[in-house]
């Protein structure tokens, strides 16, 4: 029986995920009535800056975070607990095998994933129907679609780049589709010049969409949530976004008849398709006080049963990490699951700001934003990014 206090810090600040997590914690609490659980939900954007402080100062027992490069500084600073022992437990080793790699550094595991989700294009089926369009699979179709949408007085895509990372998602797809997964990862690792022609090609493709008026105007002043209404009101036909966008879109009144999903189309037929599928994780800070309870919580959260519940369409609306859990029969989750497991042969990326070092991510995403507003400045922007690369990767 677990006793004592268990403090949990969550960054799931949007209403739906927040409720899901709180419900899960409540269920955990029921199983351990003597455990006093305290949950703190922190604004997702603020969480990203505050994690350093609380990991060193007043560490919780469990904290959410992200996999891969994004957790590296904390692992290296010794702020995350090594949880390889969990992975040594037979059930877990088996069940969490698919995400183990993303959580491994130096052959040790530093946390567990609790969800991941596909990215892709969410679109207004009714508008497509109205204009007589179908889901595009190639860049040519995509552009043809877009031309028609623009002609109807709409934007093809809504986007809000105020917080930059949404532009990062677009870059991921443009670059992965143009140059392939491995090139993309090389670029994130600082091994390729930003002034390389292949990079330029990525942007030239992107520019085609921008030039035809494919994106809503003034996106640099909106957050991703503030960009949702454009789609809801039908002023934009689609949104390249993670699956978490489905919940608010539904909440805003779009039915499943109006909303649908397709995989980002092929641009360069020579490269294999690869996808963004960011993994959200739980970690035990090295300074946690009740690590026993924390481990138990990690086991609980990744159990097949809980994974099924929290990831279903009414809750997180994302994909479970436990191999034994079932994917909800929500149509988006089914499509996403299928896409990731069968049609992503090139590889699965975490996300630009998780794959590239933080500073480079910041500078480059600013560049993407600038590019989306002023595509004519591309050379200048790339030169700037190249200078930053020289400074950052030492």
């Amino acid at each position: 029986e677990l006793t004592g206090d268990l403090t949990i810090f969550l960054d799931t600040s949007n209403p739906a995920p927040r409720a899901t997590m709180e419900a899960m914690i409540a269920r955990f609490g029921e199983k351990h009535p003597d455990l006093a659980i305290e949950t703190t939900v922190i604004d997702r954007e603020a969480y990203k800056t505050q994690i350093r402080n609380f990991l060193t100062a007043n560490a919780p027992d469990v904290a959410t975070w992200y996999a891969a490069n994004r957790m590296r500084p904390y692992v290296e600073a010794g702020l995350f607990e090594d949880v390889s022992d969990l992975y040594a437990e037979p059930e877990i080793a088996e069940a969490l095998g698919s995400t183990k790699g993303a959580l491994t550094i130096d052959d040790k595991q530093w946390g567990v994933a609790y969800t991941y989700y596909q990215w892709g294009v969410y679109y207004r089926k009714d508008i497509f129907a109205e204009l007589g369009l179908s889901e595009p699979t190639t860049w040519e179709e995509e552009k043809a679609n877009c031309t028609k949408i623009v002609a109807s007085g709409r934007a093809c895509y809504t986007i809000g780049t105020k917080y930059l990372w949404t532009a990062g998602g677009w870059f991921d797809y443009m670059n992965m589709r143009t140059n392939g997964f491995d090139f993309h990862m090389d670029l994130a690792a600082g091994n390729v010049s930003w002034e390389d022609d292949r990079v330029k090609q990525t942007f030239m493709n992107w520019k085609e969409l921008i030039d035809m008026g494919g994106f809503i105007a003034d996106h640099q002043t909106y957050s991703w949530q503030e960009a949702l209404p454009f789609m809801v009101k039908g002023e934009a036909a689609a949104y390249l976004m993670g699956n978490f966008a489905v919940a608010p879109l539904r909440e805003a009144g779009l039915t499943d008849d109006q909303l649908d999903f397709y995989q980002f189309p092929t641009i360069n037929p020579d490269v294999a398709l690869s996808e963004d599928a960011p993994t959200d994780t739980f970690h035990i800070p090295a300074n946690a006080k009740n690590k026993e309870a924390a481990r138990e919580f990690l086991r609980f959260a990744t159990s097949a049963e809980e994974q099924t519940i929290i990831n279903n369409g009414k809750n997180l609306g994302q994909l479970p990490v436990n191999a034994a859990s079932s994917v909800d029969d929500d149509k988006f989750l089914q499509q996403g699951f299928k896409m990731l497991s069968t049609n992503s042969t090139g590889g699965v990326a975490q996300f630009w700001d998780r794959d590239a070092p933080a500073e480079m991510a910041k500078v480059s995403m600013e560049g993407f934003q600038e590019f989306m507003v002023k595509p004519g400045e591309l050379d200048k922007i790339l030169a700037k990014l190249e200078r930053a690369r020289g400074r950052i990767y030492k």
Partner: protein
Amino acid sequence: MTVSSDIPEAESWFHRNQQRIAPWLFLAPGILFFAVYVIAPVFQSFNLSLYEWDGLGEKTYVGMRNYEDLYWEYVDRDAFFTSLKNNVMWLFLYLLAIPAGLFIALFLNQTVRGIRLYKSLFFFPFVISQVVVGLVFTWFYDPSFGLLNTMLGWVGMGPINVLGNEHLVTYGIVAAGLWPQTAYCMILYLTGLNAVDPEQIEAGRLDGAKGWSMLWNIILPQLRPATFIAFVVTIIGALRSFDLISIMTQGGPFGSSRVLAYYMFEVALSEYGFRMGYGAAIAVVLFLIMLCFIAYFLWSMYREEKGH
């Protein structure tokens, strides 16, 4: 009638030196707090700016490298250049609060019914948090539904995305900042106007000064103390500007609205930052700029003290 003074007593050492010791006892807690939280950190920042440190691991001594990087950012017209340029713009534009405050103060310096309430309401923006001011102005500028664009629409002008345009964004934020700052200057001038010597105004009337010439030759010189204070607080407000930028644009679009104060926060403590030494170096630069004004202020205070 006698007083207790005939009792010979051995006065304690403390009692005898009371007047010499007392000030230090009174000062001790204040100085302690101030030294620990303000004075020492200034020097620590100077020191830190010579190191590279991500806030987690070991500090590495890098000498002037951080400043060199700043220099190159300046030469390359990068973030530091933008921040510095914007700070200069803030400095100058923010000073508009002074004439604007004076103008409103003159407008309100009457004794009609209810004027006190008007004065209070005009002062309102100053007491509101900059966070709220920032939000309010963000909506005010909103390209799709903001009041600004709605009003521009009335006069047939196209919508402008103030906060999304790298050339307009700083003006837009400064305008938001000017709102409370003007209110502040207004109240300073209102009290200043109260203290204007009525006999001098009358002397001026007899001398034939009117309207502008009265304002320029007789009123303004008497408002010098108010102007001085308004100048100091406005400069300092301009250099410290952080809240508005953080709330309204986060330094965007693409970093064009950064100022030093925000940039250093971004570099040192934001999501993609944690270059503490670099941040400290920016802070040092900001401090050196501010030092000019601090020195000016202290110097004029020193003259005042000695003048008495």
